């Protein structure tokens, strides 16, 4: 509304408290085997993880899905079967039948199992949400301990959209019974490449 902006800003200016300083945020660093902490966190949030030493192991998995006739999209150029063109322009109703999406994770957070996935890697913002099974591939060296380090590694507005994904979609809205697989993926599998 035309005057509301000015009215709100004026009222805030008149009513706001005396200045309070903005604190610096420490890193709260923790040493240790981050990969194992990360794997433990993934398990806790209902994701499965596989440690691999090369991408060829991910390729093998991907091929096994293809052979089984799975409808999948692979947005990772380093893997075999990179096929974004088939789905890039697809709308939601066309994507509804998508089974599996392979997407690169940028940064993993050991403490909570969250993985930062940015729009340029997911290609289509719908991929990580509309598929039944999401496969994220992350380098072991991109695992940090906590969110403070993670935010130092990422640029949140580098792409128009980015998200921390921590496990498969879930809900406990019926009597607090945990149900894995709400509206998004029913499954999350994470390949950790060292």
């Amino acid at each position, binding site marked *: *509304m035309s005057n*509301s*902006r000015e009215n*709100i*800003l004026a*009222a*805030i200016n008149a*009513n*706001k*408290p005396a200045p*309070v*300083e*903005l*604190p610096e*945020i420490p890193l*709260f660093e923790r040493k240790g085997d981050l990969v194992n902490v990360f794997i433990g966190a993934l398990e806790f*949030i209902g994701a499965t993880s596989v440690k691999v030493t090369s991408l060829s192991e991910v390729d093998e998995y991907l091929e096994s899905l293809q052979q089984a006739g799975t409808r999948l999209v692979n947005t990772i150029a380093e893997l075999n079967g990179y096929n974004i063109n088939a789905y890039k322009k697809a709308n*939601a*109703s066309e994507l509804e039948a998508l089974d599996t999406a392979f997407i690169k994770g940028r940064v993993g957070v050991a*403490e*909570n*199992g*969250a993985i930062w996935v940015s*729009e340029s890697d997911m290609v*289509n*913002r*719908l991929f990580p*949400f*509309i598929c039944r099974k999401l496969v994220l591939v992350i380098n072991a060296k991109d695992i940090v301990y*906590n*969110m*403070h380090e*993670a*935010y130092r590694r990422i640029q*949140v*507005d580098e*792409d*128009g*959209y*980015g*998200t*921390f*994904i*921590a496990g*498969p*979609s*879930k*809900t*406990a*809205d*019926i*009597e*607090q*019974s945990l*149900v894995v*697989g*709400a*509206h*998004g*993926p029913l499954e999350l599998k994470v390949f950790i490449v060292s």
Partner: protein
Amino acid sequence: MSQPATHHNKAAAAFLKNGQRAQWHDETLWFVRAKRDKAAHQIPEWEALRNLGSQIKEHTLSNLDEYLLQFEANAKKNGIKVHWANNAAEHNQIVYEILLHHNAVNVVKSKSMLTEECGLNHYLAERKISVVDTDLGEYIVQLRNEPPSHIVLPAIHLKKEDVSNTFHKHLHTEKNNQDPVYLTRAARQVLRKKFITADAAITGVNFAVAETGGIVVCTNEGNADLGVHANKVHIACMGFEKIIPRAQDLSVFLRLLARSATGQPITTYSSHFHRPKAGQEMHIVLVNNGRTEQLGREAFRNSLKCIRCAACFNTCPVYRRSGGHSYHNSVAGPIGSILAPNLDMRKNADLPFASTLCGSCTNVCPVKINIHEQLWSWRQVLMAEGYGGSAKKASMKLMTGVLSKPAVYRLSTGMARFFMRYLPFLVNNRLNPWYKQRDMPSAPKESFKDWYKKNRNHE
């Protein structure tokens, strides 16, 4: 002027009538609180994080206008359209006009307490726009035509048999199939179609970052993302206090939020929206609706630090035993009880009294809002403004009059009698609520004062 709602105590008593259900509600929410404790105790710097969260929010409040301007400028640069609404009506009108412009009649909405506060669903329904709440809990209560009873667990007042019946009626699920997995999958089928066939998506906002001009929305179900990404219009509605200065501040709040809310280390999705996707329009509505007034109330302004985690709900022994609907406000629980009087003192004068002032809320709060002190302070304001009724005031006056004057107090012919008459919880009268389920303390043969005069008097 509004009328007072059903007093919390009456609604609470009604809630407690179903003893088993009430006990389940209490125990289930206590379990959530216990999960929160476990999650917090895994972070050695938990108290330091609470301090940081609190300081960042206090700093933001003290520079709120500048940060909102910074946010607006950056959001616009990002191609987002920013709107300002001074009250609920303006908010609803803005949302309606955007939808009208796009000929949108089917809207999917992820959780937004602000749109509850503004009564958006009802407003749009009157204008032939259908809004489907896509968070499972909200979807359940929407089908039942009820408001959410909890800001994080909207359907926590219901049992699986209730959900089963509701879904059987509306979604034609098998009668009496109460399996949560079955029921969740059924909703998934229906809602996936809604996401895909909708014309627009509305979301709430957990955080808005001034320095980058983007917003963060946290869900476990993925419903906000599915709705937004599947649609050409995204409208994000937020109370303006959701603003934070820097992207790195998110690291503090995202460590605190889910742990405080449900004991999860983080929500499944913490989605950062900075620019609309190709071919999409993105709108953000910044809403006041009484927040500037609350900002001006020195004793109450830091309630605006709230990040809506509901930890204070889960820990509150009164909330757990009275249910969210007894608070007759879009935000229930202890935090709701200090927010609601700002919106309407007459209607909500009972809420600050729906507490024992035990202080648990203040100490679970991840941003250190002094909730119990504000409850106490609201009581003072509400009584000073005359919302206590004249009888209450008169009896208090009489009581303080006597207690201020030791001579009169002594003359009240036997203190026990005085107390039995005036100390509210000890009125010796079978109509007194104390006596309904509790015995009176037995009167001793002499007071301590009398004993002291006999045994120790140095005077």
